[in-house]
């Protein structure tokens, strides 16, 4: 699977979503977020089968000193976890889109994707925050 950052949908909280043809969403955090967090040391991801609610916390990430929540951009059930990522967080810095995905979710409300930003709008948000 090839993931083009320009084709993704983004939450204002810096998580990205890629929807495949079977209705499964792959979720990760953006390169901007990874750069902001710096020196990641630990990540807690949800359990398989866990039900997620859009805009609610689904996990946490610790950089050298700060603990930050991760917010789900969509609602649905977790169907796959990128469990290797937890012990190899440097992957996120190298490739936050293809190799650094966090989890896959079966959407319960696909219309929520329409509320997310496209690449252009997300880039604008990042530019304003910089």
């Amino acid at each position, binding site marked *: 699977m090839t993931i083009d950052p320009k084709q993704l949908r983004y939450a*204002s*909280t*810096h*998580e990205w979503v890629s929807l495949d043809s079977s209705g499964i969403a792959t979720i990760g*955090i953006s390169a901007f*977020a990874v750069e*902001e*967090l710096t020196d990641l*040391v*630990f990540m*807690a991801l949800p359990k398989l089968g866990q039900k997620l609610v859009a805009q609610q916390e689904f996990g*946490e990430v*610790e*950089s*050298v*000193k*700060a*603990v*930050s*929540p*991760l*917010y789900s951009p969509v609602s649905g059930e977790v169907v796959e976890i990128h469990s290797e990522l937890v012990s190899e967080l440097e992957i996120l810095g190298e490739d936050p889109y293809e190799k650094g995905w966090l989890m896959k979710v079966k959407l319960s409300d696909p219309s929520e994707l329409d509320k997310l930003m496209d690449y252009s709008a997300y880039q604008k948000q990042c530019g304003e*925050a*910089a």
Partner: protein
Amino acid sequence: MRRSGLAVLAMNAVLWLDPPASGSWNMAMDQAMLEYAASSQQVILRIYEWSRPTVSLGYFQSWERFSEQSELQSLDVVRRMTGGGAILHDREWTYSLAIPGDLERKGHSEQLYRSVHHAVVAWLRELGYAANFWEELNQKSGTTYLKSDPFFCFERRTQVDIVVGERKIMGSAQRRSAHGLLQHGSLLIDTSPATPHLPGLLSVDTSEKPNHRYYFANPARLGEVVKIGLQLGLNCRWTNGKANEAIIERAKAEAEARFASPGWTRSKNR
């Protein structure tokens, strides 16, 4: 990750000087303080002490690692909401800082570390201590940067930690949440009998400094220094205050539900 807004206008800011309390109460009060800072849109700086020597574990630190520290097993232990390594709160000063969510923005967390620590370095230098950011020493000596494996906060090094000589004597840790940013910090004043390998400020530099043991008996001094540091990064209008009844009730609920619970304290198995 959640970010928004810019600090443009002067912020109301309050300093709380709290009496010694248990670890679970201190952590619960910090959480209640953060929520109140968000709802009231003000910065709150809290200086507090611990009624007994207490170990605070970083949010993700494993309980197993604590269990391996035989010299700590007779002490109280609590888990913080902030990251970083374990701290033995004995002969040290603690501050907590709550920044409302709307003030969170790019680079703000780094800015907060630097602003607060910059003021502490300047203050310690005025008092005659050879204080530096770790990054300054690191650049000069080429010493290897230590990743976050050691159990104790004061055994770890990040770039903006404060060292005297090569000994770390102050570090801070943060937590971001929907309410805003919570920052904890600890200044190690003297060496605890339980951790003789972690010398405090008064042990690191034993050169003649009249009355320093008396001077460092008053943690309110740290509040004044942190306030100066925050003025570098935030435009604050300071007053003194204390938690109201609603905040205290919220802290009671947090202490009971979370911070005094062994389930919470032992929850992480990283």
